[in-house]
């Protein structure tokens, strides 16, 4: 670990074993699909095969007549619901091939299929529009009547900084380029799954769902049933991956199951097939990035102009929030005086785009980090040097006009460059003979605003309870998504309270245990979400110290100390032992105090809410503080390209990330290893490639992901920066881990081949022919 300064911690900065690790690796953990209840029904949905259509007739008589089919529900039955996604549980206006028109519940999975096949639907096909370019054409069919030119107005953001015209006047070199990225699937191992049932004891609609954001999912259930939120009990099931995918989609699935359970008075289990998951879960937004960049011949970037348009698909699924982030990051990790960028989404009759690990950054960086190299080449300059000149440093002013501190970007880059022998290799590969297999090395740097920033309030709550035996129970409004949140939170709780990590228990989120703390997204869990955990721990530590003092728990016999002299300030609690700061040999075990507290009625719990600083921004110019801090990173990819087939073999990836403070180094490495392979898929082989809106790749036989055989050698470097903004100084890592990989690969492919791949991914055909073969 590379760190700025040594500080003493007892629990964090250690690779503690995952709190939920044994259950998962031993197979004991039950996921939602594993749950079973007596008399349980199974559910399914009927999807439109058309991309743009209207249902003219639907007849469910035959389906209802099938023995064992307990409920058949169509869009007509759900007129009063509003949904919390851009799209509905069921609909008669089809905007993409995947919209659902009906759902059923039946005694077996095969009866579900029979019932769905027995529903008769007639459609009137309507004109559709599928690409960004077509959607923006004059007179293009409108996906939503209320959005002119198919532009999603609410997702339009701008940066206006300095004077763009003056900026370009100062430039000796001006470059204009266009880059494009593709739809990709999250590809979590576990498809969406839920079990919904009316709990006979409480009368509550109880749902156990593979929900990334349990409280968000609860809203859908309340909506579809028309009941108050406190009549819904949401218990988060263990998640088999999400990466941003189990947000809106799982809300709809859970609500549908709850509705069917409500109608049939039976438990209903709804588990998506992989095909259902491909057809309904959101995808990463494809972007069309048009950039214009100007620099002086000395290599100072003086102007940056950009238009970033993303394909939102048929429905708005967070495009406005994502584009806010894309807007903030629209000119890359560089200090540029004059910037003018516009970012907006368009509607098309495709599967909807939504949150996916990176939230626009993987697309943007794919463009920006190639652009900077194209500029370097145009300037006849070394691409690392050009980055050094322009990258953010302490005191640099960002695109939103705010100075940044604790910026270790250049150190991270220089270290990675040196570690990989990048300079020598890059020069050597450029001159390599014209052989069939060519080596390439490519670099990309990145920065990422930590947490939600000004996008939405980054507040959270934590409940912490000390039990009489000294064990500790915590509940948080943010949820374990597989990323290790529970482990990190337990470490932070133990550190703040002063107990052992092993003393903490932190079960799955239950909506009756804690208040809604927003979504577990934006890599905010540790950096911001855990602030309330630290706060609760520190508060409870004070309470427990006060208890220890009031109960006169220390034995002062044989010392010249008296209780009259002692104050709370004199006492500390670490590793589950109270001690006097001035006399560390005078101690009392935590458990002695907790045991005494319970019989004397002392407080042994704390609930704390964390509210971050206000971040006001100007909508027209995008100026203002966007994030509490940024995380920096550098990724170097090494490839071997088969010049005869276009096959890109990713040999090695070196990834260095500024994590602020490494709460759990092993989990950080796990995040980065996974992020690298996910970035490899994005950069080399993954492409949903819908044809006229229809998703053809609906399972992992045709949707190609990297296998373990494809994973490269990986060298991961963790940097700590000393920046105090996040919880114990921690920064985001979940998304930084993957965001720059595809850009580094594209730059490596260029180094190897001299071919600039401006349309992701670097698949066989694109590398060989320089274009997509579709």
């Amino acid at each position, binding site marked *: 670990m590379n760190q700025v300064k040594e500080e003493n911690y007892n629990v964090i900065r250690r690779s503690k074993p995952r709190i939920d690790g044994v259950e998962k690796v031993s197979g004991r953990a039950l996921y939602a699909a594993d749950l079973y209840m007596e008399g349980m029904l199974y559910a399914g949905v009927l999807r439109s095969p058309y991309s743009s259509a209207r249902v003219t007739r639907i007849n469910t008589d035959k389906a209802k007549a099938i023995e064992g089919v307990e409920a058949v529900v169509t869009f007509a039955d759900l007129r009063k619901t509003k949904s919390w996604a851009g799209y509905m549980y069921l609909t008669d206006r089809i905007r993409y091939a995947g919209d659902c028109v009906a759902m059923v519940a039946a005694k077996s999975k*095969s009866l579900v*299929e*029979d019932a769905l*096949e027995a529903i008769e639907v007639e459609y009137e096909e309507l004109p559709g529009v599928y690409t960004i370019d077509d959607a923006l054409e004059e007179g293009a069919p409108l996906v939503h009547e209320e959005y002119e030119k198919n532009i999603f107005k609410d997702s339009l953001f701008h940066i206006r900084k300095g004077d763009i015209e003056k900026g370009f006047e100062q430039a000796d070199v001006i470059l204009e380029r266009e880059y494009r990225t593709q739809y990709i699937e999250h590809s979590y191992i576990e498809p969406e799954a839920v079990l919904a049932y009316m709990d006979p004891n409480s009368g509550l609609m109880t749902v156990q769902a593979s929900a990334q954001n349990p409280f968000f999912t609860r809203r859908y259930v309340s909506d579809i049933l028309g009941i108050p939120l406190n009549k819904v009990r949401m218990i988060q099931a263990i998640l088999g991956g999400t990466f941003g995918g189990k947000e809106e989609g799982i809300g709809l699935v859970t609500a549908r199951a709850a509705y069917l359970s409500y109608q049939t008075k039976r438990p209903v289990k709804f588990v998506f097939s992989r095909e259902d998951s491909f057809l309904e879960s959101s995808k990463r937004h494809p972007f069309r990035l048009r950039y214009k960049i100007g620099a002086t011949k000395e290599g100072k970037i003086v102007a940056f102009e950009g238009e970033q348009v993303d394909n939102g698909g048929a429905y708005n699924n967070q495009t406005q929030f994502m584009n806010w982030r894309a807007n903030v990051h629209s000119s890359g990790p560089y200090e540029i005086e004059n910037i003018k960028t516009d970012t907006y989404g368009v509607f098309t009759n495709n599967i909807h785009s939504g949150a996916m690990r990176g939230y626009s950054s993987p697309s943007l960086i794919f463009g920006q980090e190639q652009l900077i190299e194209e500029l370097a080449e145009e300037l006849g300059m070394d691409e690392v040097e050009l980055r050094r000149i322009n990258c953010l440093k302490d005191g640099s002013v960002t695109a939103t006009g705010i100075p940044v501190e604790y910026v270790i970007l250049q150190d991270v880059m220089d270290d990675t460059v040196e570690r990989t022998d990048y300079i020598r290799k890059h020069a050597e590969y450029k001159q390599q003979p014209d052989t*069939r297999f060519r080596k390439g090395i490519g670099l990309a740097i990145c920065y990422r605003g930590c947490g939600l920033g000004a996008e939405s309030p980054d507040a959270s709550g934590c409940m912490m309870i000390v039990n009489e035996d000294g064990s500790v129970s915590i509940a948080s409004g943010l949820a374990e998504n597989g990323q290790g949140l529970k482990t990190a939170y337990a470490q932070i709780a133990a550190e703040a309270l002063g107990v052992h990590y092993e003393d903490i228990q932190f079960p799955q989120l239950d909506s009756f245990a804690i208040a809604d703390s927003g979504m577990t997204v934006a890599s905010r869990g540790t950096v911001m979400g855990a602030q309330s955990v630290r706060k609760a721990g520190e508060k409870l530590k004070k309470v427990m110290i006060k208890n220890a003092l009031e109960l006169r728990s220390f034995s002062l016999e044989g010392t010249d100390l008296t209780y009259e002299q002692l104050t709370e300030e004199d006492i500390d609690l670490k590793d589950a032992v109270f001690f006097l700061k001035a006399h560390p040999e005078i101690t009392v075990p935590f458990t002695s105090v907790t045991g005494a507290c319970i019989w004397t009625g002392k407080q042994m719990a704390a609930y704390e809410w964390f509210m971050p600083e206000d971040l006001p921004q100007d909508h027209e110019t995008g100026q203002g503080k966007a994030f509490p801090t940024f995380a920096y990173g550098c990724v170097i990819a090494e490839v071997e390209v*088969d010049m*005869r*087939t*276009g*096959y890109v073999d990713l040999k090695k990836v070196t990834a260095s990330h500024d994590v602020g403070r490494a709460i759990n180094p092993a989990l950080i490495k796990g995040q980065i290893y996974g992020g690298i392979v996910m970035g490899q898929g994005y950069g080399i*082989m993954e492409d949903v490639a819908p044809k006229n809106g229809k998703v053809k790749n609906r399972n992992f*036989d045709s949707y*190609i*992901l*990297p*296998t*373990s*055989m*494809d994973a490269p050698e990986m060298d991961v470097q963790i940097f700590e920066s000393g920046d105090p903004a996040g919880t114990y100084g921690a920064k985001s890592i979940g998304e930084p881990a993957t965001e720059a990989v595809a850009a580094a690969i594209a730059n490596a492919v260029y180094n190897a081949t001299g071919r600039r791949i401006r349309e992701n991914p670097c*698949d*066989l*055909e694109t590398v*060989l*022919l320089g274009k997509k*073969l579709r």
Partner: protein
Amino acid sequence: MFKYDYYRAETPDEVCEVLARYQGKARIVAGGTDIMVQIREKDKRWKELECLLDLSFLEDELRYIREEGDQIHIGALTTHTDLERSEVIKRWLPFLGKAASTVGSPQIRNRGTIGGSICNASPAADPLTPLIALDAWTVIRGRDGERVVTLKDFYTGQGKVGLKEDEFVKEFTVRKLPEGTVTGFAKLGRRKALAISRLNVSAALRLDEEGRIDFARIAPGCIFSTPDRVETAENILIGRKPSEELWREAGKAVSEEMIRRTGIRWSTEYKQPAVEAIVEDALTECCGSQFA
């Protein structure tokens, strides 16, 4: 959801009887790595399916690799893993073992059978190309006994094989390659495992005492509607010494044959140069990269 009977055959005769009874609406399942996926996808080929006839319990009769004189007999239930590990295959037909070892994943290779792979009739099947290069025969069993047809003629059209209603494939028979023959198999997929071949090629060569090629076989997969050797390419090799230049000529002959047979398609722009490279790879593997 497709609904059909499941029938487990106890004897080869019973297989024919059941097939006949269902009059073309029964389909054999062995490893199930193709058909179970197709049924799940509701492939319209199986819309009329009335029976899945399971051969898995006929291993004694149908799972074998036998060396007899100058022939090798491969039972239809032989798995890809069996081929990959067989000493007989390694000794006499190494490219068949290699091709089988590149199929799917270990799980698929453990279940998938050579009979299933051939009868599924995908032009991308990896073990198909060495069998075509070997001029394999298909031994077909019906109610009236056995008949033999060349593997090439067994394919009656894209994705189709010639079996009568009561027939099933019992084995593939190949003649051992002439002593001293070297073989190669090359494949291009989109990733290193679990990859359906975008292109694949099997090649076999023998050199005479002067180092000239006197025996040559080249069988590409994925590019023809029914599998075949490319004799024009093989003929280019005969009487000449191995060289990169010669491999290039052979590769060109294969891509020309592809265009002659299937015309220019949307994918030709890519396949033409790439298949040439894969042919060269297979030939290079035969001789190693060192040329005398």
